[in-house]
Every structure is written in structure tokens, then in C-alpha cells.
């Protein structure tokens, strides 16, 4: 009798433990199967964020890029007056019309400047630091303006550095692409929103159903070559 009780106890322990384990495993596999598709879409959305670090090319969206290698250098200004930037002093070829000049730490409102064959000039007030952005292959219209005659002030130019930013011309090229030709596994939409949460660029379809979104902070070029802070947003759905 005692032996039978032992057998029954052992069986109950086994069945109870087995039931608990199996229910946990089944619950997990159910949720895993459900989330697999979502994870796949999420990974795809994350991978599409890399279009910010690739230059323009034709083909599917996963192989495209809307980035460009842009450059900046800092200028330290000694006082009030006109600041001159001689292009011959910069080691990288400059598209003069892509110049965008900002006070250091500030984006959003660039300083006006005048262009001549060999230099750009702008006005500075007080000792200050500026950051000058440019690239070498864009096609922005000139925005050279006439500045008042000011005495030239001394300035120090620091080394040029390169960064990936979103190219305005590449965004325009993507906008003209046929969606069906660019679509891969999932439907997608690529958007760029500015720091005020206004939509600057949009390509793809309107999201439908369960959608996965991925986003990253980016710098992007506006239509006049200004460099702005913003976010690249990718929506993906089946």
C-alpha cells in the first residue's frame, strides 16, 4: 500500500511539474510566433535607418541612400567686423553654394554671406565662434547677398571634419522614384521631420494596420543648403 502511495505521489509530482513547464513553453512559443513577424519588421525598419549613411544609388530601398558626406570647420573670431573665408585655405573641394554658416551650438538660423570667386565673407559681432558647413557635390542656387563694408577681423580656422547628413538632392531623387520598384519585403514609408516636428520629406505609402516605426536623429539639408536638426522616421508594415 505504502509503495502504491509512493508511486502515485511520484506520478502526481511528475505530471504537475510537466504541466507547468509545458504550459510555460507553449505560452512562450505562442507569443514568440506572434512577435516573430513584428521582430522581423522591426529589424527591417532599423536596417532602413541606414539610408542616412549611404549615398544615393538606384535599386530597392534597402540598397539606397539619401545621405551625403558633408563637412564643417570651426572659426574663432577675435571681434566685430567682416570675416573672410578663402576657399584656397580649405583642403577639400567646396561647392560654394552649399555654404551654411552658424554660430557654434546653434542650428536653425544661418548667417548671411557674400560670395566672390575666391572667398566668402560674413559679418560677426563680438568675439565668437562659428561653424561653417559645406559639401562638394550639391547643386544649390546661390544665396550670396550684399553685406555692408566692414573692416576685416582676424579669425582662426580649425581643421575640417566630415559627417554624414541627409542630402537634399538625394531626397529629391528618392521622391521621384516609383514606389513599386523600390519596395522590398514589407511596405514602408520614409519621413524626415524637423526639430519643430514639422514634416519636411515623405516617401512611400500611408501606413496601414500593425505598423512598426523606427527613428533616429539626423542632420539634414534644406532646399537652400541650411543644415537642420531633425529625425529620420521609417514606418514598416506587411
Amino acid at each position: 500500500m505504502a509503495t502504491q502511495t509512493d508511486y502515485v505521489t511520484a506520478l502526481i509530482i511528475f505530471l504537475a511539474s510537466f504541466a507547468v513547464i509545458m504550459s510555460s513553453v507553449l505560452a512562450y512559443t505562442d507569443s514568440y510566433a506572434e512577435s516573430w513577424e513584428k521582430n522581423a519588421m522591426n529589424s527591417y525598419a532599423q536596417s532602413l535607418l541606414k539610408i542616412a549613411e549611404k549615398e544615393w544609388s538606384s535599386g530597392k530601398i534597402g540598397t539606397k541612400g539619401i545621405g551625403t558626406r558633408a563637412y564643417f570647420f570651426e572659426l574663432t573670431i577675435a571681434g566685430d567686423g567682416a570675416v573672410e573665408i578663402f576657399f584656397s585655405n580649405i583642403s577639400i573641394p567646396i561647392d560654394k553654394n552649399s555654404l551654411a554658416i552658424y554660430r557654434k551650438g546653434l542650428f536653425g538660423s544661418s548667417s548671411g554671406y557674400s560670395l566672390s570667386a575666391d572667398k566668402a565673407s560674413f559679418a560677426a559681432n563680438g568675439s565668437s565662434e562659428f561653424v561653417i558647413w559645406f559639401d562638394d557635390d550639391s547643386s544649390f542656387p546661390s544665396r550670396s547677398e550684399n553685406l555692408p563694408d566692414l573692416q576685416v577681423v582676424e579669425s582662426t580656422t580649425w581643421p575640417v571634419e566630415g559627417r554624414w547628413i541627409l542630402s537634399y538632392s538625394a531626397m529629391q531623387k528618392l521622391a521621384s522614384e516609383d514606389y513599386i520598384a523600390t519596395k522590398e519585403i514589407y511596405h514602408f514609408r520614409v519621413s524626415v521631420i524637423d526639430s519643430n516636428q514639422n514634416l519636411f520629406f515623405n516617401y512611400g505609402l500611408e501606413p496601414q494596420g500593425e505598423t512598426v516605426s523606427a527613428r533616429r536623429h539626423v542632420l539634414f539639408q534644406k532646399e537652400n543648403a541650411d543644415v537642420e536638426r531633425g529625425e529620420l522616421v521609417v514606418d514598416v508594415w506587411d
Partner: protein
Amino acid sequence: MKGISYSIEAVIAVLIIASAALPLLSLTSVNTDHAKQHAYQNLQYLSADPQLREFVFEDNANGIKSMLEGFFDDYEFEICNPECTGAKRTARETIIADWHFAGYRNVNQPRTLRIYLFG
């Protein structure tokens, strides 16, 4: 006595089954991978502003904090010059993201900005 040994056998059997299921339950978290990727994307973006580099080379913790604000939620950071000493706080899951700076302007002096993200 036999019953007890069978009970032990049963428990061992359950443990074997559980250990077989364990790899399924302990798959690497996709969210952790994305959090890392997101951290590097944020650092890449922030480093586009020469202000961050200046703060790192001035050991300006308040300046760095003001730039990181809004990009990371639960975090600590340190400037490694060149060695990192580690976060003051520990958590079960901590993601570390490093961003290296070769120098500032005309000074070559490698430093690292290390971010600790707590899960």
C-alpha cells in the same frame, strides 16, 4: 523508499525537459540590440556638433549632460582619459556605448565618452 527515488527521478526528468526549453526562453533580447544601436545613432548625431567634443575635452560634465538630455532616459556617463573607471550605479542589465574622440582642434589627445544605460 522506492517512491522517493521515483520522485527524485521525476524531478530530474522535469529538470531535463526544462533545460531543453531554456535556450528558447533565454534568446537574446532584440530590444537590447536595438537599444545599443539607438545609443550609437544618438552619439553619432550628437558628435556632429563640435560643441560635444569641446565639452569632452574641457571635462565639462554639465555641458555634456545638457547635450545628452532628451536622448537617453536612465543613464550615467564618464569621460575616459584614457581609462574608464566604471559606472557608480550597477543594474542587472547595463548597456555600454563608447564614442571615441581623437582630439580637439589642433590637439591630438584621445578620449572616450562612455554612456551607461540601465535597463
